[in-house]
């Protein structure tokens, strides 16, 4: 196995959890999120000539690949379906308590997504990356391939729209901190 492969394995170990949870928060489906995580890394491998495989600095890039994959997940899954078909099935069923908690989390996540679905998709992407995933403006800009100012204006617009549509009660206030930068 070459150095690239080795580095790539480390990249997976370091960031698969972040990608997995990002995919879940955009889809409210754990098993789809798992498949999409594989797709994100397969895509990243395919495009490895475009990046240097090292360190934390790759996380925004991975979020960017994931965001692209999520924009048309059906096409993404189709493109990699032969590879996904070679995945072994889980050897044992999930631990039952864990599975029950996952079903609950999916239901909750569907409700959360419902509350932001009135936003344009690009505003949703910025909101999720900056607020839920905790990326900085510069990182989100790198992930989305847009100028930092665009991230800022989309986030401001998303906040304003949620505020107007009455989603600022309770927990949302803490979800939508005023811009401090």
């Amino acid at each position: 196995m070459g150095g690239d492969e080795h580095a790539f394995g480390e990249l997976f170990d370091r960031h698969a959890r972040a990608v997995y949870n990002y995919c879940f928060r955009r889809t409210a489906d754990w098993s789809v999120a798992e498949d999409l995580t594989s797709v994100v890394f397969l895509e990243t491998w395919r495009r490895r000539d475009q990046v240097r495989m090292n360190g934390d600095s790759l996380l925004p890039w991975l979020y960017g690949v994931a965001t692209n994959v999520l924009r048309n997940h059906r096409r993404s899954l189709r493109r990699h379906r032969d590879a996904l078909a070679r995945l072994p099935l889980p050897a044992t069923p999930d631990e039952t308590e864990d599975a029950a908690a996952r079903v609950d989390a999916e239901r909750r996540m569907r409700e959360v997504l419902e509350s932001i679905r009135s936003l344009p998709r690009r505003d949703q992407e910025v909101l999720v990356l900056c607020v839920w995933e905790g990326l900085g403006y510069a990182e989100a800009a790198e992930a989305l391939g847009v100028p930092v100012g665009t991230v800022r204006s989309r986030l401001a617009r998303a906040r304003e729209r949620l505020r107007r549509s009455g989603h600022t009660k309770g927990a949302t206030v803490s979800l939508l901190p005023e811009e401090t930068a």
Partner: protein
Amino acid sequence: MNLPPEPRDMPAGRHAARRAHLMREMTAHAPMRRRRLLPIGAFTAVLAGGIAAALVIAPATSVGNRPPAAGAEAAEVFHRAADAAEANPDPAPRPGQFLYVESREVHAAAADHPASVSRRKVWLPADRRGPGLLLSDMGEGGKWGRAWLCTNRELSREESSAARPPARCDYHHPVVRTDLPTDPERMHAWLYRNSRGGNPPDVQAFITVGDTLREAYVPPAALSAMFKAAARIPGVTVTDRALDFGGRKGIAVGQTWQGVRHELIFDASTYRLLGERQVVDHDASFRPTGGATPLSPSGEPTDLPSADPRTPAPTLPPDRPSDETDLPSAVPTGEPTMPPSNAWKEGTVLYQSATVRTAVAEEIGRTP
């Protein structure tokens, strides 16, 4: 807006399995033996679902080619269930009381593994204030685990399983659904309007029926309206009138999409809802559409003001800079139900939840 659930690791062993798979894919130069993933029909249905979703964007006014509603047999079961709901209502929990639901869940009977069974008890605050409580055993005869339920903040692992309820924790989910429409027509519109999950609307609407009824108190008139509305969802059929469902004889009413059949199970004699199942089903004949907003008799889209206070009235797409040409996200943009691998045998029960008992509890954690 509630908080997203806390991040989780992949299920046990999956990180390693995914990693190993990735390493093999990276190093495999020769394409491996191709495996057919989906029957052609199912694949076409995926595309059809995509097209139906795309149609939502334009305010659709055509009612032509709408698929028939649920099969006549399924509709009859739903109407009997609607009658039973009004004839034998459950007691309603009052503020300060708890809805108690005890159920038995079966998970993932894999090809060479027996299904695992767990018991589950929840106490949910009728007024949504303060925590809910989930007790679940780790399988037959296993020990019970505790989890406090709140959606207004994340709990640490210690807080979640502590003996005492955590502070500043509100369950917040609707428990007593006095917010739901009681008219079948409005309920039908409500189901389609509140169904966002990435599946075609006809599929997501049926899933929403189960999501809404699970571990909630739905007043009899709304429950009746829910069943009557479900009777109008296309692709819903009866597959089994004598299902052994945890020792009770059940009627399975469900809809198959992407290799999985979502079923609601009704008692074969009383027509009470007993629970739900997800079963592997390779039948790909159902072609959901449901892209159009259901029309009212006047021919206007039935965009009634939402009866759910949590849901904002639909908003118009914003004015956007010209570089943003993507579709408004009111289209289901989430994920479709993914087909299970062909390694799953037809009829495999992926998930089953049977309600054992529903009651009103005065005190959290105490079985009524």
